[in-house]
């Protein structure tokens, strides 16, 4: 690999800084008392406490999944603190002005000034700072449209019937090891409800940040799009530098009722660890949506961060004529490991799914696509198309593809294709010979490689995604 490329690879993590906010943090460890503490801190109703405790009991009986193409030391779940909330938030800020200025500066350093972005892009931002939501904007405008958008901890009190009906309806309490853990200890997250026939007047956005040392984040997000409604939701994540690995086990549930459309976009740039593989976030996420008749769920993700990513945003195509999409860019560098993909479960007639996955591996990283396409016997006329491309940068990384295809319907059509390629020295030389520096050349090639996915991102996100990719690629290219 040319030297200048190595130099490019060696740059530091830009979002690596720690916000000094006094926090109310539970000592490490997980037991029934911790769950009761979390639940009582949030003044939760009895049924939810029970729900958490059941999940916890299930979790105790479960084993960590070992099938992913990732390696890590065993996680000591008793060394993790399961609750942390910034102290200054005991009294909720009523507007952005009341938000801790330290916090706002954090976002500015990341290049995403909250109010500016909110006003310029017309985005309502629900900021999750560690575990508690601190600010929600544009609430009034959304309320006018009948859209409910608030922290899930509030929704438990405000819209108990919706929570009780849908929480765990897509990702059951004991779906998998990490989902069970999340169900037991989930801290906070977003709740969205779009009423029948309503087109959400703006993109909804949340920025997650892990801040407190050794605090796991266990967000829980629930989005319900009622019949014929439409919503686009953006999720962005960055985290400051820490030496110890931090666990993140979120659960996202999407419910698209008849004719509804949900577009869920993620840019994930959590701390990936240093170039020697020290530190970084373990991102073990369960994301799943269910589509009723004619509904559509589209997942778009740009995954550039985390030491380990374990994530399979999935769609259960339950209703006839429903549509599932998965567009993914996963970039790994240095010692990062990603095992990500999707599941498309076709249950209804004439259901359609499209999977476009672009994996970019650099440094000594391992990047795997793992997917499942299942055609159930009732899925008459269902179609799937999957395209998985891998780009290798340098000769010490790995790119892997594990697509599971299960078909039980004769009229269903499943098509899967995968290719691998590399950024060749010829390509780089050509660019250099035309006066383009290698960094730029690599970034151009990688951007071109990811184009099909980027065009699925909302405008204001696409720009950020491109930027993040470029930052993550720094030094990654050979």
């Amino acid at each position, binding site marked *: 690999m040319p030297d200048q490329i190595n130099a490019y690879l060696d740059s530091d993590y830009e979002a690596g800084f720690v916000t000094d906010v006094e926090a109310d943090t539970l000592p490490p460890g997980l037991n029934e008392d911790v769950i009761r503490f979390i639940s009582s801190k949030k003044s939760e109703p009895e049924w939810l406490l029970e729900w958490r405790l059941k999940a916890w009991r299930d979790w105790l009986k479960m084993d960590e999944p070992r*099938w992913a*193409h990732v390696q890590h030391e065993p996680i000591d779940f008793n060394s993790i603190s399961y609750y942390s909330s910034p102290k200054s938030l005991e009294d909720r800020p009523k507007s952005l002005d009341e938000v801790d200025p330290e916090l706002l500066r954090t976002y500015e350093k990341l290049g995403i000034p909250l109010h500016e972005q909110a006003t310029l892009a017309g985005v309502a931002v629900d900021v999750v700072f560690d575990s508690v939501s601190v600010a929600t904007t544009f609430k009034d405008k959304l309320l006018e449209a009948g859209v409910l958008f608030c922290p899930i901890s509030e929704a438990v009190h405000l819209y108990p019937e919706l929570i009780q009906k849908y929480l765990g309806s897509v990702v059951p309490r004991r779906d998998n090891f990490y989902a069970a853990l999340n169900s037991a200890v989930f801290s906070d997250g977003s709740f969205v409800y779009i009423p029948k026939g309503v087109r959400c007047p703006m993109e909804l956005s949340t920025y997650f940040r892990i801040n407190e040392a050794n605090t796991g984040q266990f967000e829980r997000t629930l989005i319900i799009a009622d019949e014929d409604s439409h919503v686009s939701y953006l999720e962005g994540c960055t985290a400051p530098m820490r030496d110890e690995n931090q666990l993140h086990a979120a659960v996202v549930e999407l419910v698209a009722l008849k004719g509804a459309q949900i577009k869920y976009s993620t840019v994930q740039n959590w701390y990936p660890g240093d170039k020697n593989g020290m530190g970084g976030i373990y991102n073990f996420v369960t994301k799943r949506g269910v589509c009723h008749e004619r509904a559509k769920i589209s997942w778009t993700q740009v995954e550039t961060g985390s030491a380990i990513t374990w994530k399979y945003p999935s769609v259960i195509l339950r209703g006839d004529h429903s549509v599932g999409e998965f567009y993914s860019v996963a970039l790994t560098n240095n010692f990062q490991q990603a095992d990500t993909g999707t599941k498309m479960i076709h249950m209804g007639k004439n259901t359609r799914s499209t999977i476009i996955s672009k994996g970019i591996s650099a440094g000594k990283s391992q990047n795997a696509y793992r997917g499942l396409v299942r*055609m159930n*016997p009732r899925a008459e006329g269902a179609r799937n198309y999957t395209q998985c491309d*891998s780009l*290798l*940068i*340098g*000769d*010490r*990384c*790995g*790119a*892997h*593809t*594990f*697509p*599971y*295809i*299960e*078909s*039980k*319907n*004769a*009229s*269903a*059509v*499943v*098509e*899967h*294709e*995968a*290719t*691998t*390629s*590399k950024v*060749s020295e010829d390509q780089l030389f050509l660019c250099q010979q035309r006066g383009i520096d290698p960094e730029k050349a690599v970034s151009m090639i990688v951007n071109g490689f990811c184009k099909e996915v980027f065009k699925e991102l909302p405008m204001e996100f696409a720009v950020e995604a491109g930027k993040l990719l470029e930052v993550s690629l720094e030094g990654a290219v*050979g």
Partner: protein
Amino acid sequence: MSGFDQNAAAALTSRADAQIWLEAFRDLNRQQWLASHWPDRKTEAWKYTPLTPLAQGDYLRFPTAGKVQIERARYDIPGLDCQRLVFVNGEMMPELCQLSPAREACCVTRFCDADEQQQALITQHLGKIAEATDNPFVALNGSWLEDGVLLQVAADQRIEEPLHIVHMTTPDQQAFSVRQRLLVALDSGAEATVIEHFTSDEARQNSFVTGVSEFKLAAGARLTHYRLHLEEEHNIHIGGVYAQLDRDAHIDSFFLGLGSRLTRLDLRIQHQGAGSHAQLNGIYLSKGTQHIDIHSTVEHEMPQGSTSEVVRGIVDDEAKAVFNGRIHIHPNAQKTLAELSNRNLLLTNTAEVYTKPELEIYADDVRCAHGATVSQIEDLSLYYLQSRGIDRKEAQVMLSFGFINELIGALRHEPLQRLLRPILTQWFGKDSGLTRHLL
């Protein structure tokens, strides 16, 4: 005894006088078999293939030798000049065999007839290409090993006539097990053709067959290989083909699996020298309540190798088919070209196809691709045939046959094409009217 018991299987021994020099090998395999985990749904490599038919069967005995009448038509490949070995229920039938006199260029021998030199060669390679640790059933095969076939070709010798090895079963009073082992060692620049032909008489079979083959190809050697599973559907077959290719070696392998109660075939090619090439084609057909599982693995360990793999399957009725095609490019294997295509036709809503083409790549300067499809016959092709007056059902059969006939047409030995086409036609022939235009 009833049921397939792991301990009993290990205890099941061959004749007391069976080849003492293989005892250490059997021991090692026996230990490995006992140590291995009985595959279940949580075992990734067996996820879709329950071993219930084997587990519940009463197979733990070897057949009693007896005289059987075998029609020549059951094993003959008309028009093929070949050396032939015929085994019935694991027992060699000398009167049906047809071997050229032993010569230095090429030797075909049974393990039990091996001279000291040959024993040394067998000991050197046996279990090193298909390792007992790879798969519990390789271990089981090894722990039962008492005999096998060795084909050895000397350097730069081209053997034109194929070695045709027929493994035939015929039902016995009680269910039983048959084990087969083949070792092919081609010295540098040697060329040979091997046909492994598993068949049976028409009666309802009651055997569990385990056939494991190991191929060692030295630099520049070339092997053409056919593995035909044409047994009656009540047999169980769990076997494998394992090949190691040295520099510039070349293997051209074809398998045909006509489903049975349970057929599982593991194919593994290791490219251990630079510039080796593998062409791996295959067809699996599954109908009724049959279950067939093909697991192929290609290991590119050295640079500049290439692999082309084309596998097609048709699944009908309530049958199941599993295909797992793994390509693994090691860090050293730069400039590798590897391609895999797996296409499936699913004919009913009660049949099931599970396919997983896998790529695991640790070198950047490679070109790898795989594709997998599951579908039914294309509407446009059907319409084209219909618009020429051909009945829709007949058109469906013609197109299904065409789907696999492409691979049959690519077989290097025409007598095999002529052997297989009618067998395949018969497979589709629920109604002979539908197949009258095939061939």
